[in-house]
């Protein structure tokens, strides 16, 4: 196989990995842009001499398409910095195809997971951040990176652009209800951590998928997740067979349709969300990430 393969083992994945779709770019200010392939979304910033790209998209082809989109939007400013929003390959798996010489910034835990994974195409961060908040100034651009604690994936960093009044947080709150089975979400502290971002001054929210929303849409997204968590507990204690899709979809969907049924994707996704969330209460959360004072088990096993 010619392409970086991430976690794929089948040679038949070559065409999927190589495909280079057109990406849609939208300017959020004179230097901040958002870009999407129709599902995954991220942001990039035109700095004084180059570009700061958040994430890479999820295949080598999409990473190259991302680079081309940046070149078209901000010609003459090659990507010199990549910031991983979190460790997942569908967002940050292919720096090797986006800008192999770039400095890569990531959270400490994200960097450890990336190292342990060793996925082909996902480059190791060159600058590792520890702690909840970091004010960065890179090539004339200032912004703050925030890791309130486990939300989704490992070492998930949000970016706050104070001048633009924009918040970017990948695969956390969405502008719709298209959460699927909520892969690798950490529910114990998710909503309070996300609501913490409302203490900052911003007006537009850029999620890691689908469309943008505003502050009210973000707050409603927090309300929605919180309501799903409550109704899943009610379903459990009402003897709903929590391991079955249809009864969980019916119970939680009926309970929440009046408040949230207008969210795009509600009927197709509420059953998936309910199956996942109710198991948080059945099992007690997953790992130390899902505890009142979260941390990561075995992180020391992966030295940086």
């Amino acid at each position, binding site marked *: 196989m010619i392409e970086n393969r991430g976690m794929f083992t089948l040679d038949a994945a070559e065409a999927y990995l190589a495909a280079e779709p057109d990406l849609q770019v939208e300017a959020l200010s004179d230097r901040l842009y958002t870009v999407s392939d129709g599902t995954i979304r991220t942001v990039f910033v035109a700095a004084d001499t180059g570009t700061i790209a958040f994430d890479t998209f999820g295949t080598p082809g999409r990473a190259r398409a991302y680079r081309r989109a940046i070149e078209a939007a901000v010609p003459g400013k090659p990507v010199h910095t990549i910031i991983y929003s979190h460790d997942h390959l569908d967002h940050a798996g292919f720096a090797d195809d986006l800008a192999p010489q770039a400095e890569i910034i990531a959270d400490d835990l994200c960097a450890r*997971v990336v190292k342990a994974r060793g996925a082909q195409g996902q480059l190791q961060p060159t600058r590792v951040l520890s702690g909840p908040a970091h004010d960065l100034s890179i090539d004339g651009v200032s912004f703050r990176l925030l890791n309130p604690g486990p939300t989704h994936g490992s070492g998930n960093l949000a970016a706050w652009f104070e001048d633009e009044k924009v918040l970017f947080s990948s695969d956390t709150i969405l502008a719709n209800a298209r959460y699927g089975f909520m892969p690798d979400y950490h529910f114990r502290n998710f909503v309070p951590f996300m609501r913490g971002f409302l203490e900052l001054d911003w007006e537009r929210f850029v999620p890691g998928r689908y469309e943008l929303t505003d502050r009210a849409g973000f707050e409603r997204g927090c309300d929605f997740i919180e309501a799903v968590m409550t109704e899943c507990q009610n379903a459990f204690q009402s003897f709903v067979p929590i391991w079955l899709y249809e009864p969980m979809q019916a119970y939680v969907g009926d309970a929440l349709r009046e408040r949230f049924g207008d969210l795009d994707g509600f009927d197709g996704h509420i059953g998936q969300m309910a199956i996942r969330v109710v198991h948080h209460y059945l099992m007690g959360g997953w790992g130390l990430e899902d505890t009142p004072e979260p941390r990561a088990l075995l992180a020391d096993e992966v030295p940086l």
Partner: protein
Amino acid sequence: MSQENQAPEHSCSEHMGIFTIPGELPLQGAYRDMCYEPVRGNIWTASEGIYRTIFLEGRSSVIAFDTFGTPGTARAYAGAMNRVFPRKPIETIVYSHEHLDHTGYASDLAPEARIIAHEYADAVVKGRQSDGQKPADEVWSGERTGYEIDGCSFELIYPGPTHGDGNVAAYFPQHKTLFMVDTVADGAGYTTLMDWHLTHYVPVMKRFLSLDWDLFVPGHFWALSRQRFIEILDYWDRLSEFAQKAIIDGVDPHDWDGLNRYTDEHLGPLYRNEFRYGEYAAMNLYRYMQEHLTGGWGIEGNLKPDLSPL
């Protein structure tokens, strides 16, 4: 009761795990009939129909593995053991792993019993502070340790990350019996394989094939032969390839209807008759698709374990 998990207005009279909603939480105290039967030697097994565990007859006491997943089922489990061995109290509880649905209610099963757990499981138990789940009194580390308790001999084995944290098997070489929870069970896997560490799951589980056993007692449903254990692992291996093909074929893992159609078309001819196929095969496929799309989850999902024979 953990302050962290106690809503101010809470009036539940039972241990409440990590529930945060107010009220009595009727499921917590609900009684479930418990079935039990001898396995081999001093090994017995108990089940309420879905969950399964084992207990051991000692000279003067009973060694219980796990607690079941609510206060009511924990009490039913204690009642079952007391019925079988009325003069032998539960003096030891061994945690298979840390999830509440298997080990959440030692406080209701036998609050005075000595609890044994792997250090990884105990770290999560301590961190979780779940109401009713007790931390271990004896923590062990590493890959293998032998126990001789009240005339019962067994070995605990941590093969590497599989499901949950600190998930250990109990090996009874004298009875050629292996017990392990939430790893291999008959038929399609459970929902979306909650908290499974898939990247190295199959090779880690295959390490057990280096041991001499012919009966496997899982944490759900019924016991399996060694051959069936191998066939189930083969299902997971093949699912990994099916998941890659599904991504290549453009299936959206979040499109529930499309995912079910694809599953039925591609997995159905091979696995349609498997136990719980209709309920879970699409969810199984979804989880493996995510593994290839996102990479393994967290440190546990990416560590490269020792895969040498046990």
